[in-house]
């Protein structure tokens, strides 16, 4: 309430940032001799105008919700968890183990077990950096980044040397049994008369992601633990004064964060690929940082930002398919959005704050004319 109204902070700042990113992207597209209007039309059409497009957009969004929530929860304790990527990889490993080695009678049971396993693996992968931060002061940004590399190497080893079926050329596990196939949106919403979401990977995990949003909201703003996490995040001195043990909060917040990142594994591995492949995360762990930044670490914000990034991913794929805009340039556009909404947040916020202040001063001056 101090500087500008809450709605401007939550809506106006990201919108203006997006607009700036869009303008710069348009200039880049113009510079290589393509039409930005046409490109934008293609992106919208490919990602949002057809149900299959939505199917892809929401599939990507599901990944980003999990990793975005992971970053958000850690951030409430003032911990910058860069390790979502590695934690998601380990989560995917947990999913694969459950799906491959246990015979499941029905997908719903498998989903429950896979979720638990994914969360557990992700949480354990976050535990070591969390413990080191809490008791030894090793910076969590550094350790989680390093753990991303360790996770990638570990998966590489397991897939090449241990889990790959004999005779297969690709470093991947065998396809999961049919019984653990998760219902896709196509399975759920298509009827014979109106086929919907045809061939798109969005699946029931999206609803798990929505539940996760609800869970995080309740955790942060309704529980005693959330209260302590936020107190610790704002001021460790205050937390200690109140008898909150920083070590406990750091470890628990990172466990929850890691578990959320790990849950992404059910979407990518069980929902889409239906086997564990190398690089199943495709950088979603890092996109989660941008999603959490843009979503102001609030589950609703994370949800909306995740859908936006899902749209960018799917729209970008469409562009690569239908135009001469090279794939690399689409990455540039995505990077511009991250840059403006995440890193350059203050560039928009500060002038806007000044504008609101000036406007308010004019209003008060008019309200009480000089005597």
């Amino acid at each position: 309430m101090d500087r500008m109204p809450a709605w401007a902070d939550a809506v106006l700042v990201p919108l203006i940032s997006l607009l700036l990113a869009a303008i710069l992207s348009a200039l880049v597209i113009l510079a290589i001799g393509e039409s930005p209007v046409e490109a934008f039309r293609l992106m919208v059409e490919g990602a949002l105008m057809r149900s299959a497009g939505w199917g892809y957009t929401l599939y990507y969004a599901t990944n980003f919700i999990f990793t975005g929530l992971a970053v958000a929860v850690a951030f409430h304790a003032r911990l910058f968890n860069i390790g979502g990527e590695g934690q998601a990889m380990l989560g995917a490993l947990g999913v694969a183990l459950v799906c491959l080695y246990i015979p499941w009678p029905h997908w719903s049971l498998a989903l429950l077990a896979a979720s638990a396993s994914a969360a557990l693996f992700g949480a354990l992968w976050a535990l070591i950096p969390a413990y080191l931060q809490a008791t030894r002061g090793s910076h969590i940004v550094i350790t989680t980044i390093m753990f991303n590399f360790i996770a990638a190497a570990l998966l590489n080893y397991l897939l090449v040397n241990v889990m790959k079926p004999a005779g297969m050329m690709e470093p991947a596990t065998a396809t999961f049994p049919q019984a653990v196939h998760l219902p896709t949106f196509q399975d759920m919403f298509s009827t014979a008369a109106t086929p919907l979401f045809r061939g798109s990977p969005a699946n029931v995990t999206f609803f798990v992601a929505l539940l996760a949003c609800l869970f995080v909201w309740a955790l942060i703003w309704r529980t005693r633990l959330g209260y302590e996490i936020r107190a610790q995040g704002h001021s460790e001195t205050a937390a200690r004064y109140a008898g909150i043990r920083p070590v406990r909060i750091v470890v628990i917040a990172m466990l929850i964060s890691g578990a959320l990142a790990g849950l992404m594994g059910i979407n990518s591995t069980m929902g889409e690929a239906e086997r564990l492949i190398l690089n199943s995360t495709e950088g979603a762990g890092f996109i989660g940082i941008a999603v959490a930044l843009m979503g102001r670490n609030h589950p609703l914000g994370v949800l909306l930002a995740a859908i936006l990034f899902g749209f960018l991913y799917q729209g970008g794929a469409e562009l690569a398919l239908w135009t001469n805009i090279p794939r690399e340039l689409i990455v540039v556009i995505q990077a511009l959005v991250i840059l403006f909404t995440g890193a350059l947040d203050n560039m928009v916020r500060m002038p806007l704050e000044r504008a609101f202040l000036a406007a308010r001063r004019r209003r008060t001056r008019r309200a009480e004319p000089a005597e």
Partner: protein
Amino acid sequence: MTDTAPAIELRGISKAFGPVQANKDISLAVQPGTIHGIIGENGAGKSTLMSILYGFYKADAGEVFIRGKKTEIPDSQAAIAAGIGMVFQHFKLVPNFTVLENVILGVEEGGLLKPSLAKARRALTDLAREYELNVDPDAVVETLSVGHQQRVEILKALYRQADILILDEPTGVLTPAEADHLFRILAGLKREGKTIVLITHKLREIMEITDTVSVMRQGEMTATVPTSETSPEHLAELMVGRKVLLRVDKTPARPAQTVLEIEKLRVTDQHGVERLKGIDLAVRAGEIVGIAGVAGNGQSELLEVLGGTREATGRVRINGEEMALTGRHADGRTRRGQGIAHVPEDRQRAGLVMPFAAWENAVFGYHRDPAYNRGVLMDNEAIRRDADNKIDRFDIRPANCRLSARSFSGGNQQKIVLAREIDRNPDLLLVGQPTRGVDIGAIEFIHQEIVRLRDAGKAILLVSVELDEIFSLADRIVVMFDGRVMGERDPAQTDERELGLLMAGIEGEPDKPEWQAIDEQWERVEAEEEAARHG
């Protein structure tokens, strides 16, 4: 009236921060060669006004005249060029540079340091002789006492040819004796024709040293009067806008059983420096024990140990029960369970979570109480009802528990903390600097609440660097210096001079000048700390 132009003249200065009008149409004339005091409560706009004069803020309206000449001051460079020097409340020194290096920082001449350093060394020697401003030019700043660091700040300003010196709350961190020395320096500067503006909220200083005093209240200059024609009561009234009780009404204490017993308490900080060197202390029910001392002599550590945020060795009993001083049970949660409430010295960093709403802060530390919880969820409705009650009883303004702690003034923030801690009806209340940064009106209220708790038969341990506060609240005064208890005094049978000497670690050497004894004392302490750090 003198026929010379005023050293500083402000005409119609206004400055707003958003909806807050920090300065409203302020006019002020400071005569050359005088000491001019500016007094006002926190948030009255004193610092804003001086920041405009020093080029940190741009005024929305108004003009500045220096020595009769209209002057634009867009930045501090321009202020220095106009001969204005500023000594900030928080020093702007590079801690690991020597005094000389700090003095020349920003005014080095040429690419090599040597000639500048030599020039500064000569200048410093002259200044030291002229104004009792003696500081070792080759000492590293972080090894100096606070009083000496302040002298370095003054030297910096003088080296830059300042003839108008602004000091912002200069005595906040000094012992009474160090403050006296500072005042002697200022008097010397005044004799040399320098103009001094002293910003403070301490009435005593104004009365002691200034020639003229201006009073600010809520962004306005309410009066400018010659100091000789006013009184502390009158100034307080001008500051607050109503009559103020400067001393608390209280009956003699009726101490009962011992609540807190401390034996041989020792604390070593993370640098290996011993901060508490064997404290023995007892506090009984129904009395206020006031700990006097210059900031940084172990009082904070004592409160932290008792509040459960710092580990220690020794023995502490609360209501006869042994208190854990290390390990898991040496935490704030356990302490609260033992009936200890704690109003910490730093309410903004420890006592409150500033971005939290008032209602969230109103249960901070007690948030595990079943009354505020339903299973794993917190009962936010119950907490808000509870906060509304506290706001009502402690007259916290604005009376809206949904505002964040940072939207309250210092006094109201302190009332939130106090309401929370007193409301738990503790056996022992720890209070650190209860009125630091709190306006006079709220001080009265806070003091009354503390006395009321004492009269209800509770034990109170008060730490304050304000001697006035110690005198008006404490039933027994304990002086701490360098991690030790220097002595105990009955407030009715001591005075500021005696306490001041104890606070400086001196038990009476009346023939030596005070400041000299203090300097020697400091050197001894520094040598000890240095040895501890390396040993």
